[in-house]
């Protein structure tokens, strides 16, 4: 299987990614997850200002057949959401690491970020997942 994993991002076991931007972090869904879900038709975003807790549901991503939670990789406050997704949820399928980003949040605890997987670790993790 060929799933896209890119440099410079941190990854979770639930297939979310985080990109650090100075004091904030952009969060999205990995290529692996969007492929498993299939064509995404609806996204429920958190409100700006919502306090998120790492590992808890932050957004809901729905494909034609399935409903999936996006779990926040980090704890902190939502400072921006990708409103483009409300009309074009399929951006997550097309560009999961780019135009399909989901929300931006404050970083509250640097240790949470450091605990996530890097590119190579996540690539190994996907291979293991596929073998299950």
């Amino acid at each position, binding site marked *: 299987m060929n799933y896209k994993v890119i440099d410079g991002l941190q990854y979770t076991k639930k297939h979310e990614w985080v990109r650090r931007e100075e004091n904030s972090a952009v969060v999205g869904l990995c290529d692996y997850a969007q492929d498993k879900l*299939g*064509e995404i*038709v*609806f996204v*429920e975003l958190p409100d700006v200002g919502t306090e998120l807790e790492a590992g808890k549901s932050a957004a*809901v991503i*729905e494909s*034609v*057949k399935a*409903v999936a939670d996006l779990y926040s990789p980090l704890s902190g406050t939502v400072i921006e959401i990708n409103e483009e997704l*409300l009309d074009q949820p399929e951006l997550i399928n097309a560009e999961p690491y780019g135009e399909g980003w989901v929300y931006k949040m404050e970083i509250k605890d640097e240790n949470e970020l450091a605990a996530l997987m890097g590119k190579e670790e996540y690539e190994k993790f996907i291979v293991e997942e596929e073998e299950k």
Partner: protein
Amino acid sequence: MDEGRKTPFYEKHLALGGKIVNYSGWLLPVQFPQGLVEEVINTRKGVSLFDVSHMGEISVKGRGAEAYLQKMVTNDLARLKNNAVMYSPVCYPDGGVVDDILVYRVEDDNYLLVVNAANTDKDFDWFMENLSGDVVLTNLSPDYAQLALQGPDSEKILQSLVSEPLEKIRNYHFVSDLNLAGAKCLVSRTGYTGEDGFEIYCSNEDASKIWDAVWEAGQKYSLSAAGLGSRDVLRLEASMPLYGHELSSDLNPLMAGLDRFVALGKAVSFNGQEALKIYKQEGLTQKLFGLEMADRGVPREGYPVSDGESELGWISSGTYSPTLDKFIAMAFLDPKAVKPGDQVVVTIRNRSYGARIIKMPFYRRDY
């Protein structure tokens, strides 16, 4: 992949990149790489090939077969001619639904029943329990493979493979011995997509060469393989019920709006007749309605529907409709409280989303 039965087309699905799931004990493709949305559109505009070998087939033969079946199904088989197909619910005495099936009349007192995969064993037991006359029941399901060729280009593809003029097989009719790729098949003009199309029944041994012949003939058109996911969306767009959602032992066929398949005035009595007559007289507390979301949100099975204050019922099936580019659903609602055109509220994860009751079918093909 967990154990499950493979159909004779399993290797074809793998070769085409189908994503395999276990559905009612069968390993079948839920979708192919082009994606569910494209599969739906291609079925509406071109043609798709579905493996539906999981469907069950039960042969009913012998003197008294018609009288026996008349007792078992709600529709009136007196109107069914040889080489024709009739859709019918099968009910318990209390009006609950055992299954919804297709009845093929091969010849006098010789029928083939096509039943839902998940219900095959249950149906066979139920039909055995009620057996009468010199009727012999045989569960042929393990021996039959089935393909559904669906979409406006279906006839052209199949016609290029057979000598008999297919325009002679009218909707809900069949031929039991069509020669296809050197094999004998039963071919009916039926389907579960709302499009013109055929269902091809053949032996497991002949299955592979029939797939290959249809596939090759389809290359001149836009034939592609389609999976269970798009099949479900297509049937929902065409507002066809699915057992386990719109029909079950707790739901009766009148609730699902299948009145025209329930011959309450049939000359002979049938299982469920008395109970269904009473439902009809006293009025139903829940009936199936079509919903279209006004707010963007995906309506799914089990979500509650209300008028904003009091609960009206629940969603039985819902989806994004690629054909209509809308979110649609079927819902059991109180018919005294609502009518088409009314605004209602669907609760999705504790939030309220506006929806409108609309007439079904959501989609109907042009002739």
